[in-house]
């Protein structure tokens, strides 16, 4: 029956010479000219975006990307040792932590080492590395000293990334070599006292001078990494923009390159923080700072986009960094487990310890697999990695917290001591769940961006269904897809992409993706636009998405290991199997919970509990010892 519909469709389509046939796998509908309104459907190449439509687009995940050519690989491998040597022989993370600062001599060595311009083109004195190569160095930072990592990251991953991504030729010439070789620090200044996650609500304002040559910048920023040392900052401020179509005046965010030397730029004292103490964090104030018009970055009114692009672009680095941090924690834990004897046996012999060690390694493997999937897709030129990058940031920061915590647990009392260095790592890495988009906001971002994408598809389908005669191809494809999912045949098949040993596990992931698509649709039907207010549900959906991505990247990487016959292939296979079992179970639960009545009732009760406690201003119970 289905086959009949398809062949009929194919004939008809040939007649109308429209490429509907590809619609089943990749709604490539660019060529449809007839009804522009109903046929304009924006298609994303992102794997994660498409699972919101219940579809699998394999190009970005299968086979596991492998973008570095031999020369590029050799280059990065030749940089690894000297970079590591700096950390083992010159830098001391515990000393930096103790002093809450990095020694001047150590910083100078870092500048000499070339660590401040890793992705800056060689013509400006940088190393000109791609994202994947940068990621490999981030791993070393993460394994050795997160404070140094943040100092370097605040400088180049966000501080002047805007100049690399949006800068004019003139801006690049003026700033990049200074920022790479002349010991000039950069910072990224977005957050304000009243504007954290809600970045669009910043109050810093820039007013254009009457002659149009300058902007006068006023406002203050908080928690700016390198705020006390940066001489060049990427600053975001509200500017008044006139809508060309309507003539209406509106506030839009604009990005500026601000030099301390412009005058009027000051900063507060270094903040006293829980961790990453040696990284300089301050408030920064702008008092009538005269910013030349040439220092607008990325065009007037485009600041929000500039900020989000910079943050999106830098996020993958956190995954790679924390993969390195986890390696360090695992090594500490394993050293201890291999040597510590209790009850007459090495503690590595005990199930309690073994389970921890396995779990820690599985999370590390998935984090690393995500980071290098994303970095390599970015290097391939993909522009649509924002969901994946957000997921990898969430996954990496939460996995690292777990792994470090468990490493401390394995070491027991020893782990609680400063000497073991794990307490510092735990404090240092806590910030990763908060900064550059809190994990909570990123979860909503993932769910809502995906849902919006799915909704555009649904609207498109709705229009197609209203006029099935003209859109027979689309309608029949959709019907056949739905028929096959609903009768359990499944339209998603991992088998061509993964190792035979993993087929059962690929099936689990495929089932998750199918249920995911259906769940999104169900939510859209049920809540419509109001889905944006259903944070409890969005969080569950997002968690399901994260689990799916972790399964897919590990399935892909382990299959690569098998194909290349790597000596660690069996080990990678084992970790992938366990991860798929855990993640698919959790994912299915979360997806069911987006609509299960019992869960929705529970959510209502939780809402009520939170409301009561907030009204009371604290715990709202009657103490057992009371008259």
């Amino acid at each position, binding site marked *: 029956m289905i086959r009949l519909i398809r062949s009929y469709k194919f004939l008809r389509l040939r007649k109308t010479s429209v490429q509907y046939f590809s619609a089943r796998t990749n709604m490539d509908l660019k060529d449809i000219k007839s009804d522009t309104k109903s046929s304009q459907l924006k298609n994303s190449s992102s794997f994660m975006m498409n699972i919101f439509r219940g579809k699998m687009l394999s190009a970005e995940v299968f086979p596991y990307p492998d973008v570095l050519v031999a020369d590029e690989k050799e280059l990065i491998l030749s*940089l690894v040792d*000297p970079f590591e*040597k700096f950390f083992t022989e010159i830098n001391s993370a515990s000393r930096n932590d103790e002093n809450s600062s990095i020694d001047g001599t150590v910083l100078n060595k870092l500048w*000499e*080492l070339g660590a401040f311009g890793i992705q800056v083109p060689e013509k400006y*004195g940088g190393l000109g590395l791609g994202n994947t190569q940068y990621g490999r160095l981030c791993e070393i930072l993460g394994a050795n000293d997160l404070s140094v990592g943040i100092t370097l990251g605040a400088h180049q991953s966000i501080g002047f990334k805007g100049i690399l991504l949006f800068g004019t030729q003139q801006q690049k010439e003026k700033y990049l070599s200074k920022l790479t070789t002349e010991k000039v620090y950069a910072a990224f200044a977005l957050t304000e006292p009243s504007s954290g996650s809600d970045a669009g609500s910043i109050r810093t304002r820039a007013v254009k001078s009457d002659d149009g040559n300058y902007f006068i910048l006023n406002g203050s920023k908080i928690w700016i990494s390198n705020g006390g040392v940066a001489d060049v900052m990427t600053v975001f401020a509200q500017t008044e923009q006139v809508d060309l179509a309507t003539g209406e005046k509106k506030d839009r965010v604009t990005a500026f390159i601000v030099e301390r030397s412009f005058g009027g730029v000051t900063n507060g004292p270094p903040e006293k923080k829980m961790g990453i103490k040696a990284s300089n964090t301050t408030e920064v104030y702008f008092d009538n700072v005269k910013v030349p018009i040439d220092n607008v970055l990325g065009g007037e009114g485009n600041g929000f986009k500039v900020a989000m692009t910079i943050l999106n672009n830098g996020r993958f680095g956190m995954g790679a960094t924390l993969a390195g941090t986890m390696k360090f924690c695992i090594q500490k834990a394993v050293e201890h487990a291999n040597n510590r004897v209790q009850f007459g046996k090495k503690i590595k012999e005990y199930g309690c310890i073994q389970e921890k060690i396995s779990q820690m390694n599985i999370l590390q493997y998935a984090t690393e697999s995500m980071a290098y999937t994303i970095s390599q897709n970015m290097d391939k030129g993909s522009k649509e990695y924002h969901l994946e990058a957000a997921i990898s940031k969430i996954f990496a920061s939460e996995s690292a917290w777990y792994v470090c915590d468990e490493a401390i647990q394995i070491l027991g009392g020893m782990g609680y001591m400063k000497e073991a260095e794990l307490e510092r790592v735990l404090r240092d890495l806590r910030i990763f769940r908060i900064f550059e988009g809190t994990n909570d906001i990123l979860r909503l971002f993932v769910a809502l961006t995906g849902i919006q994408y799915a909704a555009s598809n649904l609207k498109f389908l709705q229009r197609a269904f209203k006029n099935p005669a003209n859109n027979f191809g689309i309608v029949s494809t959709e019907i056949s897809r739905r028929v096959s999912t609903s009768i359990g045949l499944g339209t998603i098949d991992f088998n061509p992409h993964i190792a035979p040993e993993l087929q059962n596990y690929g099936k689990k992931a495929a089932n998750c993706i199918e249920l995911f698509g259906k769940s999104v649709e169900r939510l859209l039907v049920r809540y419509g636009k109001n889905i944006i207010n259903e944070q409890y549900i969005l969080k569950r959906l997002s968690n399901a998405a994260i689990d799916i991505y972790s399964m897919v990247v590990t399935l892909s990487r382990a299959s690569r290991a098998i194909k290349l016959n790597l*000596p660690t292939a069996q080990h990678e296979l084992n970790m992938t199997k366990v991860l798929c079992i855990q993640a698919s179970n959790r994912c299915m639960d979360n997806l069911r919970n987006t609509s299960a009545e019992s869960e929705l009732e529970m959510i209502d009760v939780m809402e009520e509990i939170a409301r009561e406690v907030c009204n009371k201003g604290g715990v709202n119970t009657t103490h057992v010892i009371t008259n």
Partner: protein
Amino acid sequence: MSRVLVGVKRVVDYAVKVRVKPDKTGVVTEGVKHSMNPFDEIAVEEAIKLKEKKIASEIIAVSVGPTQSQEVIRTALAMGADRGVHVEVSGKDYDLLQPIHVSKILAKLALDEKADLIIVGKQAIDDDSNQTAQMTAAVLDWPQGTFCNKVEKTDAGLNITREIDGGLETIKTKIPAVLSADLRLNTPRYATLPNIMKAKKKPLKKVTPKDLGVDTTPRIEVVSVEEPPVRQAGALVPDVDALVGKLKEGGHI
């Protein structure tokens, strides 16, 4: 102004715990981290110092070994050497390569390149031969300054402070000469990342021993390589008498 030839050997990294191959023909090198012999790093650093003082005009880093030896040449280039020569020896010839072969190669290259000074590490941390500098000097019939602690240029040649068992010895040599670097000669610099990138563009010439007219046919045969014996567990004795008794029993006193 003089040209300096520096010998750099690729060895198993000092931090690696070496393991003997099951067939006892040598140690496991596959998948093991390698780096430049630490004494050779000191030799390279000394050559760079001479160049910075304008005593040397050009530094040529030489490594004898398989293709991977080019890695240590690149490191030398990143530190500051000007160009590299890779003398390719691999397989069984390399496994059994001895200082006698290397010294002949270095001597021939020194003549070909018109070098005025050869600096090598006093020994390699893998086979600990401590012969290459001495043999090279002999082949060339040049003066030698081994175990250098300090090297100073004078009008007549070099003032060299050497580390010897009893302390330090100062000698004078003429140039050309062969030097070997001891541990305290200097602290080698780090190869910075931009310099590593630049090193990729520096010239690296590949030659074979045959090109140089040196025969590297093995002259030795490895009979067996053994792990050091595992230390026997100790035992506690209750008092001095018991200790003396045990020692007598073991024939130690």
